[in-house]
């Protein structure tokens, strides 16, 4: 396992009367892609900004390791608030909204931001050339940035964050407002960047995208980290509930639901949702076999001809929804 590069220890962040982050504990491993998943307003952006020291937490602290992340595993951690200049060389931050000068060309933007990192002219040139190539922006390098399309603007944004070759790239909702094709391309780019050794922290509310991209995922809900783990770990931990989807003819689902509910209850089968979604009847349960037996019986008694029957394992999205629903219920 790689050494941690960031350590978030008991961090609480308050804005006015809003406690945005509550006792956050999190580690970011060197070389990984860490996804932070949460609904809008859950505190993802605040967490990312607190991580790099923009916001000073009211409680707890964020630590980071100065030495190159891969080389040294024993290097000491420093609070981000005290070592801002050093830290700023270490990370690149692509916020949710585009963050570049619209009146400058692509190349001028890259040159400008590269210059602010005290890079040598030649290094700047080399970095920009390779970045333009890598990000697919070469042919647009002299285009004024305000004329870039959404996807290109996002690529430029990421390029601006990478121009000083940071060890950590922080992306806040990088695929927001992009069409599926562009989203796919951006995620592919992120993967490529990570493959070059850059640690990536990515915040998003779209779990499906992160499921295949991230090494680890942290669920953030109402300012709290609910759980952290690899997608596989999370699925294994929370995926004992399955969904049975049945499509039948003539599909008198309303009367079927009443009967099915009473049969399941009388036979002691635990279930959570029995509903109609389009042309399908959906049943969620942890006792798939027993439930399926009752379903088939009821359908047969109603003279329904089963056209399709599926048993689905929950996605991370489902797990997240499930987890947050549980939390809300507790509250």
């Amino acid at each position, binding site marked *: 396992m790689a050494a941690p590069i960031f350590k978030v220890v008991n961090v*609480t962040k*308050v*804005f*006015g*009367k*809003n*406690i*945005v982050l*509550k*006792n956050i504990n999190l580690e970011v491993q060197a070389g990984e892609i860490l996804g932070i998943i949460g609904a809008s307003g859950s505190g993802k*952006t*605040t967490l990312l*900004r607190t991580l*790099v020291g*923009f*916001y000073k937490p*009211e*409680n707890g602290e964020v630590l980071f390791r100065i030495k190159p992340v891969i080389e040294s595993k024993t290097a000491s951690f420093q609070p981000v608030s005290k070592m*801002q*200049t*050093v830290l*700023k*060389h270490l*990370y*690149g*931050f692509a*916020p949710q*909204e*585009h*963050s*570049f*000068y*619209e*009146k*400058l060309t692509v190349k*001028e*933007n890259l040159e*400008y*931001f590269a*210059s*602010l*990192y*005290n890079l040598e002219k030649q290094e700047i040139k080399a970095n920009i050339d390779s970045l333009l190539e890598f990000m697919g922006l070469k042919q647009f390098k002299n285009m*004024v940035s305000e004329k870039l399309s959404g996807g290109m603007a996002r690529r430029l944004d990421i390029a*601006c*964050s990478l121009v000083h070759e940071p060890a950590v790239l922080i992306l806040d909702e990088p695929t927001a407002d992009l069409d599926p094709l562009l989203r796919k391309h951006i995620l592919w780019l992120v993967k490529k960047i990570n493959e070059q050794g850059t640690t990536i922290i990515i915040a998003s509310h779209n779990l499906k995208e992160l499921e295949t991209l991230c090494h680890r995922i942290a669920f953030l809900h*109402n300012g709290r980290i609910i759980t952290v783990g690899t997608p596989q770990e999370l699925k294994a931990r929370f995926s004992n509930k399955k969904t049975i989807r049945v499509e039948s003819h003539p599909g008198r689902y309303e009367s079927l639901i009443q009967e099915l509910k009473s049969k399941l209850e009388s036979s002691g089968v635990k279930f959570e949702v029995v509903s109609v979604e389009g042309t399908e009847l959906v049943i969620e349960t942890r006792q798939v076999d027993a439930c399926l037996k009752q379903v088939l019986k009821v359908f047969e008694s109603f003279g329904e001809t089963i056209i399709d029957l599926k048993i689905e394992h929950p996605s991370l999205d489902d797990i997240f929804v499930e987890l947050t629903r549980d939390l809300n219920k*507790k*509250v």
Partner: protein
Amino acid sequence: MKVYTIFKKNLKVIARSKTSAFAVVFGPLLVVLLISLAFNKPSVYELNVGLTVVNKDSQSAEALNLSTRLKQDLESNSYSVLEFDTSQECVNAIKQGIIHTCIVFPENFSTLQGNRNLDFFVDYSRTNLVWAVIEVVGKNIDLQASQLSMQYASELLNTLQSIKSVAENQSLEIVSLKTKISNVKQKLEQQASKLSSIDLNTVSIDLESVKQDLEDLLSEANSMKSSIISKADSILNNGNASAAHSTAQSIKSVVNDYVEGLESDVNSVKQDIDDASETVNGLNEKLSNAKISVQEVVTELNNVKQSLSNAYNELSSIQTSLEAIIDKVNNLRVKSAETISNPITTTIKTVVSENSQLLFMAPYLVMLLVMFVGLLLSGTIIVMEKQSKAFFRNFTTPTREDVFLFSNYLTSLFLLLLQIIVIIGVGYYFLDGNLLNNWQESLVLILLASSLFILLGMALGYLFPTQEGVTIGSLSLGSLFLLISNLVLPLETISGSMKTIANYNPYVIASELFRKLLFFDIEFQSIAKQLGVLLVYSIIILFLLLIAHKFSLSWYLYRLAYKPSKKKFELNTKQGVITNSEELLNFVNNQSQQEFKKFATEHAYELQVLCKESLKNKKLARAFKKLDKAMVVKVLKASINKRESNDAKKEKEKTRKAKGKEKEG
């Protein structure tokens, strides 16, 4: 390097942002250009003047002539003159803004007799124009009045001159008259003397003695006769008597005859003497009368002489007066009508060599440019940067904030200096005036003033969140500086305290310094104090800028993350949601000491927010901080009791008021 990078970027962004470039670079230049053109007119003001001659047909030729002359004079000075039939029409035209002032010649206008008052209507609500109108039109009316005054003075002087010449002639005549009087007096004196010397005393001829003598003569003749007769008798008696007798007889007869004749003669003489005496008496009476008359004539002559003396004296006095008048007329200090009508003539001589109004305005205009461009440009650059999408990314770079500040300052300074160079270059070309006098000192001043206003604009840029805010703020501040400066109102006309404030107005200091530097040869030492004041201002504003910058960044980050919510904070626990003191007390009471401590530690910030924001109870927040359950319970109970008591009081008050209303009803 970083400064140059940011500087270059700023210029590119401004240049490529058309509206900003126009607003920032060309806007102020345009404003100054317009102001320059406005101030560079041959006549300071272009005014429309209304002229009304009431009842024109019945006006005197003088009034018509005067109104025509006034109109011509105004028109020759490029003011347009509109004529109105009535004063009301004229005044209405002012109200409608068609004209700026109205001059009304009243009915029976005459400078000599009748109404000689011209009505001069102005609109005082147009404070910026009214004085100019009064000055301009008043000057023309004064000119007419001055011409009339000269005419009258001339007439007056001519009259005086004619009086003088008359007096001189009269004086000469008086002299001759006096001589004549003297002669008359002399003659009178002589005549009086002559008259006085006439002896008109009564003649007292002693005719009685003559008569007595005649009586005596007669008596003697009688005695002689008696003797002769006696002797003749004796002769007769004595012999020869006959001859003797005859002789004696003849003698006697002759003597008798003689005596008789003598007696007759004597009687006749006596009669004559009596007549003569009577005549003499008559003569004496006449003489007495003549004497009285002579005396009366002498007296009259003396009176005439006295009168002549008096007349002489009076003439002398008149002569003296006339001489005095002549002397006074001669000694009149003012002998020209122009001097009387304009006792003081002024020749405006400039202490500077040039006479273009625009040149004199140049220091104020250049500083106006420095002020407005400094404020607007720097503020706009800051807001553009703040509103730029890249503002956030700049935070993520290892660049100190002072580098950004300095770069923005440099950008503003560069653009401002560029504009000043353009303005001074244009001014140098068009004004034929040396705008580069004392150029080293001027450069120091311009740099200092530019820095001051740029720093101020930057501070405004950081304080205001939007471009509109900065523009309004900058314009307001600039206008305030402008309002209490020489450009709008002469400082000398402002009241004391405002004048003091105005003297510390950076725009006033800078523009006055620049004026002195442009038009006079001034040593650096003599302006060092004012430059020092500007420097102190700049340093103070720099501190303000740093504070505003810090405040702005904190606010930016705060706004970036936090959108204020009106909803009261609620504490979520496993047991439920806590929203008020009662629920919190219930929750705490249900916890053991250990559970309480654990909960209070884990939810420290949430509890603080709940206590301070929702329950507004700082004491409770402190109790939670101390992890003291007993104290928390105590404070909570006290708070609840207090609130209940307050509620009860309010309820009571409510009831009392309701009852009161019922009673009133």
